[in-house]
């Protein structure tokens, strides 16, 4: 194998693939990156047991200045070492050549490295996914959905199914739900061209986070295909495979209350500021709790840690309906939830001191919902 390529463009691709490579891979060869050169271009593959990324740098890409002198394949490891070398090479282009099976020389201007590669035959094969039933999603929307729901994904391995985001595609709508049992985030969007499709998937939250890192904002659409236990996201030149989580996702529809006794409408950023300030104090204390009090047409956020001190703040609001209420909760959950709304007007719907409360945008309030479970206080 021998090829010469533009360093910056190759490096960009290499970094994409590197997202999937973990330094603590279960199979040693997975710490490396597989390179395949053929007449079409160079294909790079990186993988851990959960996700795999494959990308192609084609000869038709003029900016890449790619010339392939001899086809072949090799695994270079560890991935980080290889990309560091490429990053530091002196010239704008460099040449990779494999001699004697796995000995790989990397040359650029007057600098020359010889590193030991591995035989690419031993690299695990990527799953084969039938792309016949693929559907497309707008990239910016997909990234938005992931960012809005991934905050509620569980980080505990005790219940593996909750470490994923539950995607349900049905009747031309995509619903994404994540919960760690303390809070829940759900987003529903209509997507065109899926009227006849019906999927029920649980995709690991970590995989989706990597996917948002991989996807460039300049991309318009991404093609999605689903196999039995794998999902493939495909752009023009990059394939992103992720394992799906097995098992049934718990029914979350019944968690979302239908009625409420108090509705509070205010700017997300106003409430976020108040909660952030209150959480400064609650983080210092033993229990991380702040209290929201709705009383006599005023709204107050208070934090009280006997060993540290107290904080209270009157919150300005736009509208308030319903009964007086006092509710305590973990401020970090509310902060994370509010951040996903950006600077829009939100409505808090409270039922009782003991029941979970929800946050929805004041407009379009059935598309996006954040639920937070209160903390019981002994008082």
């Amino acid at each position, binding site marked *: 194998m021998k090829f010469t390529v533009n360093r910056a463009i190759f490096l960009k691709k290499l970094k994409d693939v590197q997202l999937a490579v973990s330094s603590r891979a279960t199979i040693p060869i997975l710490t490396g990156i597989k390179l395949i050169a053929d007449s079409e271009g160079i294909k790079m593959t990186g993988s851990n047991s959960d996700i795999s990324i494959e990308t192609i740098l084609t000869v038709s890409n003029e900016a890449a200045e790619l010339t392939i002198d001899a086809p072949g394949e090799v695994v270079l490891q560890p991935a980080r070492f290889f990309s560091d070398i490429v990053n530091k090479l002196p010239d704008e282009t460099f040449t990779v050549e494999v001699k004697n099976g796995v000995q790989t020389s990397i040359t650029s201007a007057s600098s020359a490295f010889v590193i030991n590669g591995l035989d690419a035959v031993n690299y695990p094969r990527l799953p084969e996914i039938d792309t016949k039933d693929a559907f497309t999603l707008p990239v910016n929307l997909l990234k938005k959905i992931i960012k809005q729901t991934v905050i509620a994904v569980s980080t505990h391995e005790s219940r593996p199914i909750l470490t994923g985001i539950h995607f349900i595609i049905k009747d031309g709508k995509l619903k994404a739900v994540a919960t760690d049992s303390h809070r*829940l985030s759900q987003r529903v969007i209509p997507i065109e061209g899926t009227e006849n499709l019906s999927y029920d998937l649980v995709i690991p939250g970590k995989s989706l986070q990597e996917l948002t890192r991989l996807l460039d904002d300049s991309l318009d659409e991404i093609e999605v295909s689903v196999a039995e236990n794998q999902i493939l996201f495909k752009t023009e030149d990059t394939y992103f495979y992720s394992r799906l989580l097995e098992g049934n996702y718990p029914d979350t529809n019944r968690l979302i209350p239908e009625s409420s006794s108090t509705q509070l409408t205010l700017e997300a950023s106003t409430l976020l500021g108040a909660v952030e300030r209150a959480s400064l104090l609650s983080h210092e204390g033993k229990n991380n709790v702040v209290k929201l009090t709705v009383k006599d047409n005023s709204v107050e956020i208070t934090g009280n840690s006997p060993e540290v001190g107290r904080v209270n703040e009157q919150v300005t609001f736009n509208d308030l309906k319903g009964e007086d209420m006092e509710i305590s*909760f973990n401020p970090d959950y509310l902060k994370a939830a509010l951040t996903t709304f950006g600077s829009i007007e939100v409505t808090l719907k409270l039922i009782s001191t003991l*029941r979970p409360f929800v946050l929805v945008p004041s407009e379009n309030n059935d598309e996006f919902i954040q*639920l937070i479970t209160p903390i019981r206080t002994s008082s």
Partner: protein
Amino acid sequence: MLDTFTELEAQTEATLGIIKTMKDEVSHLTEENNVLRMENQHLRDRLAEIIKQQSIEKQMTDSGLTKSRLNLEKIYEDGFHVCNLFYGSRRDGDEPCAFCLEVIYGERK
């Protein structure tokens, strides 16, 4: 004349007997009456107590919870999950659980 006296004595003795029996009867009845009065008082107290308790229970169900749900709430407050996902496992650091709350307070159709 003596015969008349003997007859009168016998009659008086009989009357005395009747008076004795009647006196015993009256004291017996009074005693019984007292016992029943006390018994009645006790029963009334007991009844009042039961009514009071019932109204408390009723108030509890007024908060929307049946006895079994109150039981679950108690287990939850003692720091254990009652939802079918984590049932029986400990709620670490008193973490709240939306699934449990749904089980306790949720509406069943």
